[in-house]
């Protein structure tokens, strides 16, 4: 166990601050349009290479679009997709988890079977088919990712709820004649918030990778959007002549996901000691048959990324 430090670790802190800053101020920071290119300026290498052009610090792609501007605008897509998808999945999952855990009985049994089914599906496969058949669009990508993500929240929140429900203050509230809704919202939910924060952070990296994978496969955010996954796919045919088209957005993606993951680890260590034993292995890496929560010690480190962290 690494030493507990109070202050936010610098590497993920700096990377994430930069990311949010560029995403918010993309319009001011990007030197060119992310979607319009000048075909006469196509395939210009980055500035440090021969024939580099200071007008395009990171070079241009096959349509003459500025790679730097596209990466900057791309950060927006990654952030918005993960924020909304996790927001939706977190809300639905938390609600169902709270209800299942608090009500118990048949409600719990039904909801948890549903959760088990959700967790057992091959994520990427289902995502690819769902988006492809429902026409790739920004909205559909978010919906499909949320659909695949909610069981993770439900499972974890339900486990926490079960434990909190047994506490004296809940029993007192019941005796005092409070309604279930009141108890759940006033007593149980606030106690679940730290866990929620940790799971959400740990899912951001996964969502970014999943969105990237879908976009790369051509069933994600449709072109000409500057989604990082799309940019990497764009450069596939130019690996030999213009490697920067694929390499640089991928690097941005790796740095972002790495920073989010490290931040999630740090948050887990500080906010939620209960989760510490879980490790990221259980929370982040379990797209398939995740054993987040009470089942964690029942299975071996569950679920390698189905083909790698979302790919």
């Amino acid at each position: 166990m690494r030493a507990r430090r109070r202050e936010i670790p610098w590497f993920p802190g700096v990377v994430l601050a930069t990311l949010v800053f560029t995403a918010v101020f993309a319009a001011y920071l990007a030197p060119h349009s992310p979607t319009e290119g000048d075909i006469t300026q196509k395939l210009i290498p980055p500035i440090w290479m021969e024939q580099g052009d200071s007008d395009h610090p990171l070079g241009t792609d096959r349509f003459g679009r500025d790679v730097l501007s596209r990466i900057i605008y791309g950060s927006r897509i990654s952030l918005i997709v993960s924020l909304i998808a996790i927001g939706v999945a977190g809300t639905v999952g938390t609600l169902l988890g709270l209800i299942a855990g608090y009500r118990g009985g048949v409600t719990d049994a039904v909801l948890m079977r549903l959760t088990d089914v959700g967790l057992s599906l091959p994520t990427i496969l289902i995502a690819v088919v769902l988006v492809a058949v429902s026409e790739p669009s920004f909205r559909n990508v978010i919906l499909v990712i949320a659909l695949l993500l909610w069981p993770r929240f439900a499972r974890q929140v339900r486990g926490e709820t079960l434990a909190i429900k047994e506490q004296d203050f809940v029993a007192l509230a019941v005796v005092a004649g409070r309604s279930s809704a009141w108890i759940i919202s006033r007593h149980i939910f606030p106690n679940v918030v730290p866990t929620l924060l940790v799971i959400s952070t740990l899912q951001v990296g996964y969502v970014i990778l999943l969105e990237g994978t879908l976009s790369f496969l051509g069933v994600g955010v449709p072109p000409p959007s500057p989604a990082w996954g799309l940019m990497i796919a764009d450069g596939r045919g130019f690996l030999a002549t213009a490697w920067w088209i694929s390499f640089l957005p991928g690097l941005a993606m790796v740095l972002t996901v790495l920073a989010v993951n490290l931040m999630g680890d740090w948050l887990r260590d500080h906010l939620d000691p209960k989760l510490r034993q879980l490790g990221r292995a259980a929370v982040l890496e379990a797209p398939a048959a995740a054993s987040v929560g009470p089942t964690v010690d029942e299975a071996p480190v569950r679920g390698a990324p189905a083909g790698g962290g979302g790919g």
Partner: protein
Amino acid sequence: MWRYLTGRVLQTMLSLLVVISIVFVLTRFSGNPVHLLLDVNATERDQEILMRHLGLDRPLPVQYGIYVRNVFLGDFGNSVLTRRPVVEHIWERLPATVELGLVGMVLSVLIGVPLGMYSAVRRGGVLDTGARVFAVLGQSMPAFWLGLMLILFFGVVLGVLPAGGRGGLLHLILPAFTLGYFTSAAIMRLTRSAMLEVLGSDYIKFARLKGLHEQVVLWKHGLKNALLPVVTFAVMLFVQFLGGAVVTETVFAWPGLGRLLLESITTRDYPIVQAGVLVLSALYLTGNLMVDLLYSYLNPRIRHARS
């Protein structure tokens, strides 16, 4: 034990039914298949005949029932494009996917186990730190990007390995490594923690006291006992490869099931899409079931905790 077993089997069947239902609903939403199958000049009468022939004139629940029955009989219909039975297409592509998955699994064990073992032995050393970086990167890197960068380096810059396609052993190296990298990171971590636990046990101390050679202690007494979770995990990984096959197969133009699936999505050959998803999901779900049962058989604590 029996309760756990039946519960687990039922759950797998439920998951499978959900996948079948998703696929069924999708096919009904993705437009009338009659339009895909018939010529543009087809009359309304032709359409009616085909609708009846395909059973599309019946109520939806009946259609669903027929669909589920056909799936269980292994009848997925014909490809819209080639008019050949979908099953033939699947059988053509399945071996390539299994081959890649198997090699990827072996590779990830070959990398992950020794790496995890030595980082446990030399805890906190250079190798341990390096191995941790390897593992953290494995969680943060998109597989498709890693694949492309490997192609760039080994295929384009060095020119020593083929960039794609299926052929001899050389063609297997890059895709298998791409698949195996992420899992070898996970295997490494697992081996490391299992080894740390084993190395602290009395019988290892005793083996050392007996004066056994350190390598014998590590490999024979240590690894042998640390291997149970690793082996179970490795089998499970193989199963998961099937789920992630789409990505690696696309990057390396590997003619497997995953690529067939994606190709069929682009050409809107929905019978193949359905069958591909169903076959891959079925393999994936039964594989996971096997692993769970195997693991609970090997580890009594789970057997009792769950039942």
